[in-house]
C-alpha cells in the first residue's frame, strides 16, 4: 500500500472514533473530500512533499509531549484577552464590547459551506483538517466596533491545537488586533480563515517558534472594499513547518501589507507560500520577507502575485531577501507574477546572498568579534521587518537570541 492509501485507511478509522467523541461536527467531517488528496507530486509542495505530511499527520503524541511549554511572548495584561482555540469554555463576560467568540458547532456559520472560500486545489490539506476536526472557534467583530485590546490566540494547547479551525470575521467598519502564537509540542494541522468586511482593519501578528514537530497551516484571507490587512509573520523552522497564506483582495481599494521573517538553522525545514490575488480595482499589496538559513537547514519561499482581469490600478510589490549563513544551508525562493490587467504597477524581487565581507571587516576592525559582528549584521538584515511596538521589541529579542546576539 502507498503512504496515501495507508493514510486514508487510518483517517477513516479516526473519523469514526471522532463521530462518537465529538458528534456535533460529524456532518462537517464527513464532508471532507478525501478523494481530492493528491497521490502524486504537486508543484506547490515541491520542497515539502505532501506525502511526507501524510506520514506524520496521524502520529500519536509521544508521552510527555502534551506538556506544553510556556508561551514565550506576552502582551501586557490589560491590553489583551485570550480565547481558547477549541472554542470551548469561553468566558463570554470577559470579551470586549462588539466581539463574540463561539465554538464552531455553536456558531451560526453554515458548516456545509465552511470550505467554500478556501483554495483547496492549491492546499488540499484542508481536507485532512476537515476530516479530523474536533472543534473550532468563530470570532466575530460587530460592524463599526474597534476592539482595542489584542485578541490572543495561543496555539499551544496540545490536543485542541492539533487540528484546529479558526474563523475570524470582521464586519464592515470594524477593527481588531490579533496575536497568534504557536508553541507546539505535537504535530499540528490548522486552518485559519479571515473574512474582512468593507472598511475593516485587521492587525495580525503571528509568531511561530521552533519545534521538532511538523506543523502546517493555511491562513486564508478575503478583503472586501477598502479593507486593510496588516500581517507581521515570524516563522522559525521545524520538522518541517509549512505555512500557506492565501490573500484575496476581492473588493476595490483593498490594502494588504506583509512583513515577515523566516529563520532556519540546524536541520530545520521551513516552507512558506504566499499567494496574493488582486481581483478588485485600486488594490495595493506590499510584501517584505527576509530570511536567514544556517546549518543544514532548508528554507523555501514562494511568493505569487496574481492580478485578475479587471483588477486595474493595482499596485503590488514583493521583496524577498535571504542570507545563507554557511554553505550547506539550502534556500529556495521563487517570486511569481501573473498579470491579466493592463493598467497595473507590479514589482517583485528575490535575492539570496551571504554576509557582506566588507561589512564584517568593518565591524571586526572596531574590535567586535567575528561571531558578534555576524549576529549584528543578521539583526540589521531583519530590522526592516520588525513591527515598531512593544511586541516587536520582544520579538526582536527572541530573534537576537536565535541569531546568537547579545540577547542569547
Amino acid at each position, binding site marked *: 500500500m502507498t503512504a496515501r492509501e495507508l493514510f486514508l485507511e487510518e483517517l477513516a478509522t479516526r473519523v469514526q472514533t471522532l463521530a462518537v467523541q465529538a458528534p456535533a461536527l460529524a456532518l462537517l467531517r464527513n464532508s471532507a473530500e478525501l478523494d481530492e488528496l493528491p497521490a502524486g507530486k504537486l508543484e506547490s509542495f515541491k520542497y515539502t512533499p505532501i506525502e511526507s505530511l501524510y506520514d506524520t499527520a496521524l502520529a500519536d503524541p509521544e508521552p510527555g509531549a502534551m506538556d506544553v511549554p510556556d508561551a514565550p511572548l506576552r502582551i501586557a495584561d490589560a491590553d489583551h484577552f485570550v480565547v481558547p482555540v477549541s472554542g470551548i469554555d469561553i468566558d463570554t463576560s470577559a470579551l470586549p464590547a462588539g466581539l463574540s467568540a463561539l465554538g464552531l458547532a455553536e456558531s451560526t456559520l453554515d458548516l456545509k459551506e465552511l470550505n467554500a472560500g478556501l483554495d483547496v486545489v492549491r492546499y488540499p490539506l484542508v481536507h485532512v483538517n476537515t476530516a479530523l476536526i474536533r472543534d473550532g472557534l468563530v470570532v466575530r467583530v460587530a460592524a463599526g466596533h474597534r476592539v482595542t485590546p489584542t485578541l490572543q490566540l495561543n496555539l499551544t494547547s496540545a490536543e485542541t491545537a492539533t487540528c484546529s479551525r479558526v474563523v475570524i470575521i470582521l464586519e464592515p467598519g470594524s477593527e481588531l488586533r490579533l496575536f497568534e502564537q504557536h508553541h507546539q509540542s505535537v504535530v499540528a494541522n490548522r486552518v485559519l480563515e479571515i473574512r474582512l468586511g468593507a472598511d475593516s482593519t485587521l492587525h495580525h501578528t503571528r509568531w511561530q517558534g521552533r519545534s521538532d514537530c511538523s506543523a502546517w497551516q493555511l491562513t486564508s484571507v478575503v478583503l472586501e472594499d477598502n479593507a486593510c490587512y496588516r500581517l507581521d509573520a515570524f516563522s522559525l523552522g521545524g520538522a518541517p513547518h509549512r505555512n500557506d497564506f492565501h490573500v484575496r483582495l476581492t473588493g476595490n481599494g483593498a490594502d494588504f501589507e506583509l512583513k515577515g521573517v523566516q529563520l532556519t538553522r540546524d536541520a530545520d525545514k521551513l516552507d512558506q507560500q504566499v499567494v496574493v490575488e488582486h481581483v478588485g480595482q485600486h488594490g495595493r499589496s506590499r510584501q517584505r520577507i527576509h530570511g536567514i538559513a544556517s546549518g543544514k537547514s532548508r528554507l523555501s519561499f514562494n511568493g505569487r502575485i496574481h492580478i485578475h482581469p479587471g483588477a486595474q490600478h493595482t499596485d503590488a510589490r514583493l521583496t524577498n531577501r535571504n542570507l545563507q549563513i554557511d554553505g550547506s544551508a539550502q534556500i529556495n525562493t521563487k517570486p511569481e507574477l501573473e498579470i491579466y490587467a493592463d493598467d497595473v504597477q507590479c514589482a517583485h524581487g528575490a535575492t539570496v546572498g551571504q554576509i557582506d*565581507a*566588507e*561589512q564584517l*571587516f*568593518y*565591524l*571586526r*576592525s*572596531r*574590535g*567586535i*568579534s*567575528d561571531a*558578534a*559582528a555576524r549576529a*549584528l*549584521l543578521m*539583526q*540589521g*538584515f*531583519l*530590522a*526592516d521587518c520588525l513591527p515598531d511596538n512593544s511586541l516587536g521589541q520582544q520579538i526582536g529579542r527572541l530573534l537576537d537570541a536565535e541569531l546568537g546576539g*547579545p540577547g542569547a
Partner: protein
Amino acid sequence: MSNILTIEALQVEVAGKLILKGVDLQIRGGEVHAIMGPNGSGKSTLANVIAGRPGYSVSAGSIHFKDQDLVELDPEVRARLGVFLAFQHPIEIPGVSNMEFLKAAVDSHCKAAGTEPPDSMEFIKHARAVAATLDLNPDFLKRGVNEGFSGGEKKRNEILQMLLLEPTLAMLDETDSGLDIDAMQTVAEGINQFRSADTAVLLVTHYQRLLNYVVPDFVHVLVDGRIVRSGDRSLALELEERGYGWVTATAA
C-alpha cells in the same frame, strides 16, 4: 620613547600580486607620519595590512605593534590592542544603528581590557558630546551605520569612532579625500585632539593639503611598493611643488 609600530622588510600580496615590496617603517609615541605617493603605489595596502584586512597576506617581513607580532592576529584582536583604521570608504550597514555599533565596539574593548563597559546612558551622553565637537548632528547616532551619510559625514563618523575607541595607533586612509575645507578643518581638529605623547598617527594621503592642518613629523613617499624617500614636512611641500614625477624619476 619606544616604538609603537615597527615594520621590517614587509612584503604584501593581494590576490597573488605583490603590492608592497619591502617596506621599513618605525613610528614612536607622539609622532605623526604621513605616507604619500601616487595612485596604486601601495599606500592603502600598508594601512589595511596593519589593520588585518582579510585577503592581504604578508609574504615576508614583519609588523610589530609595541612588542606584539600582529601578522597572525585577527582584526578584532588588533583593534582591541589599540590599532585603528579610518576607512577610505566607510561601509554602510543599514539596520544597525550607529549608536548600537559604537557601544558594541567600545564594550568589546572594555571586555578585552577586563574593565567594566560604560553605562548605556553615560555612553550616549559621551558619544553625543564627542559628535558635537565634530559638527556631527546627534541624529546621526540613531541612524544606520553610515547609511545615507554624505562623504564628509562618513569621514567625520570615522573620527568619532577613533575618539571613542581611544586607540594607540590611528591610521587614516585618505580621510581627507572628498572633504571641503570646513570639513577638513573639523577632521584635522579631531586628529589633533587625538595626538598625545602616548599615541601615534599614520596619515595616508595623496595630497599634502591635510598636512597644513595636521603637521607631520615625518613624511614618506611610497612608490611601487617601496618607500623611496623620507623626510620632514618640507618633503610634502616639495612634492606639492614638483609632483610625484620628481620622486618617481629620482627613484628609478
